[in-house]
């Protein structure tokens, strides 16, 4: 396991090299350095994970946590210290694989996607930084190390969203992403501080006495930590940054805002799961409800978005909410007794990372081809981009939950877990799953079917209506299609991984078995959603669509504007904080605090002006003063004696 340190060192080194010397490097070299180091990291990570799982279980048939490295990074007081190290456990091993694989795919993909972009080396440097921080986050040995890397992840996300730093939208989006998550992190930090103070440790697994010492404060701390997680994982109402984050380069969206960083919140809850489920079940259930609401909200909004990346962003929010729900509905650590959700959540995290990564990369290929994010500029692309089309379809089927693709298995476990919690929750999540199928296929049809935008443009061009010759969509280069194909292949087979063997809520092996009723029901629902989408969107502008658009005009408009949450956000930041708090304070500072001091100064000055004539420089006047003074003194003396 000693090699595991290199999993962190390699990306960091690659970041440093690219950041310091990148500017002088040719693009190819920078790309190669980044990709090769990541490939090495991926191999190491897989090897480490394999070694970890191969090492087998302990006497109680559980996988134990292994800590190959742990140093006291910053001693705080006699008991508390911030440690840095590497912790290997089933979920961190799983995350290592997910992160390195997706990151490697994104690195390869970017070689094609970002070709010739200004700041190519910078891009790779940031990618390496991100990978380093994300890996550091998942192998964190304690909650504070997690927080440290959590922040680093946040900043690399900020840098990558703002990669096109000349684009105003990107600047705004990066700022928003950072500030919103930072706001959530504030709660995370307070939670950590409470946790650390009362339990006397930052470790994920405090001793029983420490927990007892914390007592009733522990749920509060855990809730606060969850708020931090909700910020990163875009739970309602802190999700507002994620759709905007799509302003970043698409591979970045795939890596950070779909597969890895946004699931950090889920990972956090999973990390603290034993504490949550035993000591704060009510918080866990609150998480479930928040998650369920977020899932629905995001699904509704996703149904009407026109920017394909935004659809994917909302679908990501929705899917992460599924994972949260799965964690939230757990009632015990035993997977057979209400602890299934943990495994389901992690499984979904794994499969979702793959197929959502695939979707984003596919979207990237499409955007690369048509130079636009808007659905109106697409349509009928299946002829031009066959590979992208097939892989995208696979991903859509997976996310919709159609067997035998991976999403089916994981989502099914989640819904089973929900039914295990309560029937309404199960029904609700099934409904949201059906909506998932609907909006994903809406997207699919809008992109690949219907009337080709290119064909229309060509006609217009021929008719002389537009001057510019339309750009013909083309299949992406090999660097981009290889990751697509790879991820599609993973998506096809990942469902058959005996995931429960590796990850389960109590570390014991758990054999996944499908509940046939639920499986059939949810598959039928998914197919229903797909059919509805087919009817509405497969042929372009169908009659039903028009009817729906007219009937549901207002709700659709509201959903399209994401129920005006961004406006609220803008109102709070721009109007309330900036104009109603900051400005008055600045004014107060200048005109009250400072002015009062100036007033003192001015009073002194006035006084000075008053006595200034005494010092006229006129000797005769001085003489008068002098003599008068002397006389006065004499008079006084005379009076006294």
């Amino acid at each position, binding site marked *: 396991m000693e090699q595991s340190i290199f999993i962190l060192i390699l990306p960091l080194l690659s970041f440093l090299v690219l950041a310091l010397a990148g500017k002088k490097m040719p693009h190819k070299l920078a790309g190669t350095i980044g990709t090769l180091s990541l490939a090495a990291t991926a191999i190491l990570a897989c090897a480490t994970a394999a070694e970890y799982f191969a090492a087998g279980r302990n006497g109680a048939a559980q996988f134990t946590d292994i800590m190959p490295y742990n140093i006291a990074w910053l001693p705080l007081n006699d008991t508390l210290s911030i440690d840095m190290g590497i912790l290997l456990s089933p979920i961190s091993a799983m995350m290592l694989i997910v992160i390195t694989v997706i990151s490697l795919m994104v690195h390869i993909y970017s070689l094609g996607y970002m070709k010739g972009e200004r700041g190519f080396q910078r891009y790779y440097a940031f990618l390496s930084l991100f990978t380093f921080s994300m890996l550091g986050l998942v192998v964190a040995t304690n909650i504070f190390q997690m927080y440290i890397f959590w922040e680093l992840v946040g900043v690399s996300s900020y840098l990558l969203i703002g990669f096109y730093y000349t684009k105003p939208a990107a600047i705004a989006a990066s700022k928003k992403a950072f500030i919103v998550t930072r706001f959530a992190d504030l709660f995370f930090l307070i939670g950590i501080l409470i946790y650390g103070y009362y339990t006397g440790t930052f470790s994920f697994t405090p001793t029983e006495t420490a927990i007892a010492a914390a007592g009733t404060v522990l749920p509060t701390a855990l809730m606060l930590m969850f708020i931090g997680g909700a910020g990163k994982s875009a739970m309602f109402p802190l999700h507002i940054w994620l759709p905007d984050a799509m302003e970043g380069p698409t591979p970045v969206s795939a890596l950070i805002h779909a597969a890895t960083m946004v699931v950090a919140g889920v990972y956090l809850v999973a990390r603290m799961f034993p504490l949550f489920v035993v000591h704060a079940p009510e918080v866990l259930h609150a998480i479930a409800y928040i998650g369920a609401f977020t899932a629905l909200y995001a699904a509704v909004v996703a149904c009407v978005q026109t920017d394909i990346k935004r659809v994917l962003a909302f679908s990501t929010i929705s899917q992460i909410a599924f994972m949260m729900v799965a964690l939230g509905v757990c009632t015990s650590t035993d997977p057979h007794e209400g602890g299934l959700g943990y495994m389901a959540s992690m499984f979904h995290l794994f499969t979702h990372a793959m197929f959502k990564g695939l979707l984003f990369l596919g979207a990237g290929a499409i955007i690369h081809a048509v130079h636009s994010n808007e659905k109106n500029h697409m349509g009928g692309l299946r002829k031009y981009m066959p590979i992208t089309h097939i892989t995208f379809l696979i991903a859509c089927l997976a996310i919709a939950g159609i067997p035998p693709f991976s999403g089916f298995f994981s989502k099914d476990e989640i819904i089973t877990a929900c039914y295990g919690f309560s029937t309404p929750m199960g029904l609700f999540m099934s409904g949201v799953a059906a909506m998932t199928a609907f909006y994903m296929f809406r997207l699919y049809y809008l992109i690949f079917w219907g009337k080709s935008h290119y064909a229309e443009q060509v006609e217009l061009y021929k008719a002389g209506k537009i001057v510019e010759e339309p750009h013909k969509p083309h299949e992406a280069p090999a660097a981009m299609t290889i990751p697509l194909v790879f991820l599609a292949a993973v998506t096809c087979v990942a469902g058959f991984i005996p995931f429960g063997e590796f990850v389960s809520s109590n570390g014991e092996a758990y054999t996944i078995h499908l509940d046939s009723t639920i499986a059939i029901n949810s598959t039928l629902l998914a197919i229903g959603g797909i059919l509805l989408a087919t009817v509405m969107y497969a042929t372009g502008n169908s009659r039903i669509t028009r009817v729906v658009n007219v009937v549901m005009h207002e709700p659709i408009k509201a959903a399209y504007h994401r129920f005006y949450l961004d406006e609220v956000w803008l109102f709070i930041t721009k109007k309330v904080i900036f104009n109603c708090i900051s400005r008055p304070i600045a004014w107060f500072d200048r005109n009250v605090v400072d002015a009062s001091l100036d007033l003192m100064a001015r009073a002194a000055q006035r006084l000075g002006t008053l006595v200034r004539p005494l010092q006229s*420089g*006129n*000797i*005769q006047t001085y*003489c*008068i003063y002098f*003599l008068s003074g002397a006389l006065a003194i004499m008079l006084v003396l005379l009076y006294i004696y």
Partner: protein
Amino acid sequence: MTIPAEYMLILSAVLFFIGVFGFFTRRNLVSLLICTELMLNAVDINFAVFNAYCHPDRLEGYIFSLFGIGVAAAETAVAIAIIINVYRNVHSIHIKRLKNLKH
């Protein structure tokens, strides 16, 4: 019959304060010099009077008056030199014009 010392002293005091008054009110360097001479003169009288009335056997007051006259002479010489120089530079000996020393 001798004159009481007080009379002499009162006379010198009156002269002195006339000089003071002049010094306060005149605006001309030469006039100021004249006033200074008046005051010095009054002081000299005092010395002489005190010597004569209080310690006629000694000569402190006498000598002091003598030196006072000498100092007055020296002072006047220097003052007049300065006045001439000032006049040469600012073409006036009016003290309002003499502000360059202030800065």
